[in-house]
């Protein structure tokens, strides 16, 4: 439908044949269709006036021509081209006139010109399916050229004192211009509104309507087809944009900039509004955000993030392209985009502000940080599309103030985390030596926070700057005293603020676990080893070194605590009474070894040491102690049991079983054990 014009018509314009001319005159005489349209207007009086003045000039035009008997072509109407040429001559004459005190003679061709344009404009207004701008490029060009001449004439004629000689012509010209402008304004709206339709349902429309193209040989088409895929803005093809540009530049040069911009702004706003809605962001008041449960709010935040990214990455840059394309004046383009960007940015920051105000709790941190990061995108989109426009500065400051509040919210969440670790006093151990929920929670949490490493660095360094400014007035923050003591302070200068915060939390966790480990004895320490190794990538080397030496200590103590008792059973001392192996003691030893070993298997088979190096180190060192001890113990004392039932009762494990059992430790699957047992 919005295809380029049928080639025939555009041809007509450039080389008007007699057929076209007669068509034109038919149209001229068919004023009934024209007046019918007007008669139905809601305000009949004024239009009738208009009509009469048009009729007047129409008839005068004809009379003039008839009267002018000197002209040989009295039976042939001049073509529009010829008339236009005469008008151009008149325009030149007017603009070269220095004395503007006396009204010039109005050439009779002006009347003809007026009639011709009117009838051309009629095509856009009357009939069952009036033309729209953009449908017939040849016709559009014809009208636009005429409009340009008209507005030039108006400008020039207005310089002369109003008098009866020029007034009728001036009035007519202004009226014609107004008609053309109303049509263009409306067609601009239509073009803009059409482009608003959801791209998903319409995405096939353009290719479909172009389908007959292949059969229609036209040298213009292939090129156009290629370019049509290049969209200036989502949903606005190059062709549509060209049509809009044509209308916009005509309107602006004719002095209808205000109307043009109003139409543009209004519809672009609607487009953005619609796009935002389509992406799932609904208008919710800030008050509602405060009252909302976290779960639905989380959904809104996700939608918000999606929309902000879409607007920042697609819509705003697209809008910039479109504005630049449509408006050759950069100041108009800048204002258009500033207007739109401002509304969008304020809409987005309001929501972000509302989120920053909500109750602060640990689970919200990540969404808060997501929002923070999305605002980064928005800032760069605004920089990209508006540059140094004054509105850009205003918006930058809006966004940065919201971000600083979101940052404060994030810092507060960390503070709360510190406090909750400090205040977490468990009195009962977690059953079966499972990972303590606090540990698991905190460490997982910290691990996730590292996904936001860069953002958190920014947040914490901003926060630290604020703090430092205030530290001059007040000694350090109340509570963060004891735990972040010597070591962290010594390395504080070298560390980034976020690493420092992480360390503070881990030290707190350490201290807390130290406390708790008393409840768990050996079991807990292993978990702790595990967790410590997982985060060691996040912090500085010396901390890591310190931790790994601690780790070795834990390793040793784990070995001692867990395997020591088993090893004790294998002690060769105390077995002999009077130089002879005492069988009941021996039985006892085997029995308790089996028991201890089973126990270890039961409780520790699901333990995981995710650090591979540590895992194999642990395995090797346990094997190195256990296997030789067991092997020699078994080798020496196994023979005391009667082969068969008795032997099997007391010697449940062969050294190989022990070995494979140890090899299966800490890798997260306890299959090896069951296999060993089956043997």
């Amino acid at each position, binding site marked *: 439908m919005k295809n380029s014009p049928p080639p025939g018509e555009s041809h007509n314009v450039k080389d008007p044949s007699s057929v076209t001319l007669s068509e034109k005159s038919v149209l001229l005489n068919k004023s009934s269709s024209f007046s019918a349209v007007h008669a139905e207007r809601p*305000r009949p009086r*004024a239009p009738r006036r208009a009509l009469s003045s048009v009729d007047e000039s129409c008839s005068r035009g004809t009379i003039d021509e008839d009267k002018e008997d000197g002209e040989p072509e009295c039976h042939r109407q001049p073509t529009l081209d010829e008339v236009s040429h005469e008008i151009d001559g008149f325009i030149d004459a007017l603009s070269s006139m220095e004395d503007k005190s006396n009204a010039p003679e109005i050439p009779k061709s002006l009347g003809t010109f007026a009639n011709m344009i009117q009838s051309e404009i009629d095509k856009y207004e009357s009939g069952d399916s009036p033309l729209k701008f953009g449908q017939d490029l040849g016709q559009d060009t014809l009208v636009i050229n005429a409009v340009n001449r008209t507005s030039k004439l108006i400008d020039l004629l207005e310089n002369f004192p109003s008098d009866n000689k020029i007034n009728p012509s001036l009035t007519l010209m202004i009226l014609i211009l107004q008609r053309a402008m109303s049509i263009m304004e409306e067609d601009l709206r239509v073009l803009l509104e059409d482009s608003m339709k959801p791209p998903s349902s319409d995405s096939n429309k353009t290719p479909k309507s172009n389908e007959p193209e292949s059969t229609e040989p036209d040298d213009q088409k292939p090129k156009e087809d290629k370019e049509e895929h290049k969209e200036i803005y989502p949903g606005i093809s190059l062709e549509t944009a060209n049509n809009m540009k044509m209308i916009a530049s005509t309107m602006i040069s004719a002095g209808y900039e205000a109307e043009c911009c109003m139409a543009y702004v209004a519809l672009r706003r609607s487009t953005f509004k619609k796009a935002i809605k389509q992406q799932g962001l609904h208008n919710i008041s*800030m*008050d509602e955000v405060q009252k909302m449960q976290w779960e639905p709010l989380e959904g809104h935040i996700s939608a918000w993030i999606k929309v902000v990214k879409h607007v920042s990455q697609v819509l705003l840059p697209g809008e910039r392209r479109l504005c630049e394309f449509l408006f050759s004046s950069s100041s108009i383009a800048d204002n258009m985009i500033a207007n739109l960007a401002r509304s969008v940015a304020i809409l987005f920051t309001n929501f972000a502000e509302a989120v920053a105000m909500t109750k602060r709790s640990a689970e919200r941190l990540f969404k808060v940080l997501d929002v923070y990061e999305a605002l980064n995108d928005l800032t760069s989109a605004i920089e990209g599309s508006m540059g140094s426009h004054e509105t850009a500065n205003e918006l930058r400051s809006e966004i940065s103030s919201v971000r600083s509040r979101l940052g404060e919210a994030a810092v507060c969440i960390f503070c709360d985390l510190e406090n909750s670790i400090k205040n977490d006093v468990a009195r009962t151990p977690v059953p079966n030596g499972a990972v303590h929920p606090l540990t698991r929670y905190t460490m997982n949490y910290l691990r996730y926070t590292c996904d936001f490493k860069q953002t958190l660095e920014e947040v914490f360094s901003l926060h630290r700057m604020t703090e430092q400014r*205030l530290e001059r007035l*007040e000694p350090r923050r109340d509570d963060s005293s004891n735990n972040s003591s010597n070591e962290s302070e010594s390395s504080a200068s070298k560390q980034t603020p976020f690493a420092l915060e992480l360390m503070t939390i881990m030290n707190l966790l350490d201290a807390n676990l130290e406390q708790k480990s008393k409840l768990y004895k050996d079991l807990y320490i292993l978990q702790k080893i595990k967790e410590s190794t997982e985060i060691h990538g996040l912090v500085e080397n010396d901390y890591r070194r310190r931790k790994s030496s601690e780790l070795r200590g834990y390793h040793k103590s784990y070995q001692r605590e867990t395997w020591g008792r088993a090893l004790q059973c294998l002690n060769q001392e105390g077995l002999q009474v009077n130089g002879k192996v005492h069988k009941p003691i021996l039985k006892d030893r085997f029995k308790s070894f089996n028991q201890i070993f089973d126990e270890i298997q039961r409780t520790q088979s699901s333990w995981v040491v995710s650090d591979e190096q540590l895992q194999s180190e642990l395995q090797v060192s346990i094997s190195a102690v256990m296997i030789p001890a067991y092997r020699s113990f078994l080798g020496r004392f196994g023979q005391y049991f009667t082969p068969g039932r008795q032997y099997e009762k007391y010697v449940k494990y062969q050294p190989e079983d022990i070995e494979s059992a140890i090899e299966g430790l800490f890798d997260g699957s306890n299959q090896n054990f069951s296999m060993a047992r089956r043997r």
Partner: protein
Amino acid sequence: MWAGAENQGNFLGRISIRRNQVASMEPDTHVEDLDQFHKLISDKFSPLLTDYPHHHDHDGDATPSAAGDAFLSAAWVRKLLDAFVSCEAEFRAVLLNGRDLTQIVKPPLDRWIPDLFDRVVKALDVCNAVTHGVEAIRFMLHQAQIVASALEQRPFTEGQIRRARRALAAVLSSIVVDERDGGGKTTERSWSFGRRGGGASSKERHHAPNFRSLSWSVAKNWSAAKQIQAISSNLYTPRGGECSLAQSVYIMGMVLVFVMWAMVACIPCQDRAGLGTHVPVPKNLGWAQSINVLQEKIGEEWKKKEKKGSSGLMDEVVKVEKLAQSLTELTDNFHYPMEEDKEAEMAAKAAKLAEVCRRMEDGLGPLQRQVREVFNRLVKGRADVLEVFDHAIKHCNPSV
């Protein structure tokens, strides 16, 4: 700009708590503070009555003050917001620099302060709605500017008149909305194009975007009047024996309600039905006297305009509307050539319109920025007070 500067004050609250632990209780300072607060309110709000002549120009023949600013003009609204900003700053100072912050976690403040937070959040929504209303006025202004420029040249001709008439229709429809329509009737295509269908609707009818179709940030069923009512809920006059800090919190709540109410009355906002009844400004309180009178005057104006499906009381908007109405009438009766007196009348109205447009254009930008500043200050103030409040709670109940 303000944002950067404001950020620095972040932890001042803690300082005052510090100080407060050391200093002994000095209830008298609060009384002094309160007196000062009262005085500030009188000082800031009474010029709003005296410096701006009440506009009794029912024919649009305003004789504005020397500065050109009438009662309820854009400049007046800005002055109102100035007054509010001063009060808010003073309130923050009174509350945060107080000597005895243990009070704020005791009744009635332990409830009143969270209530105030709640009011502030609601006021933020009002600010957003008003920002959007200013945007609508700006649309109206642009249309009015088209009218004014179309009618600049004399003698008037059909073309100019048509151009003006199109824009006039847009001026009159840009803000006036059926306020009682909760949004249900609104269709996505709030302006439709009929010219090609049946030919009944002409191009002369301007399908201008209206207020609601341009709406961005305001939720569908949001009502400015209900919001004002919500802001003022639970706002009780403190009893005589109540501490002076409680008085300050009450006063701040009052001023907030009043300013938001006045702003909503002036600037178009979604659903203002019943706005006239929603401000519980206490009578017979010295400090509130100017606010009382202001409220009465604005209330009267509101009652007068409410029935007409008002686009708000803002002086410039009212004037533009009046001029647009008489210009519509004149243009509807236009015929060429115009009688001289008619033409002179039209020209005079058009010139007046141009003048109002100029003032509007100068006033709207600063007004919009100022509404935003109020928004930002409310956010900041809330954050600061909240911080101190939370801290005080933790401090006073270590178990929490």
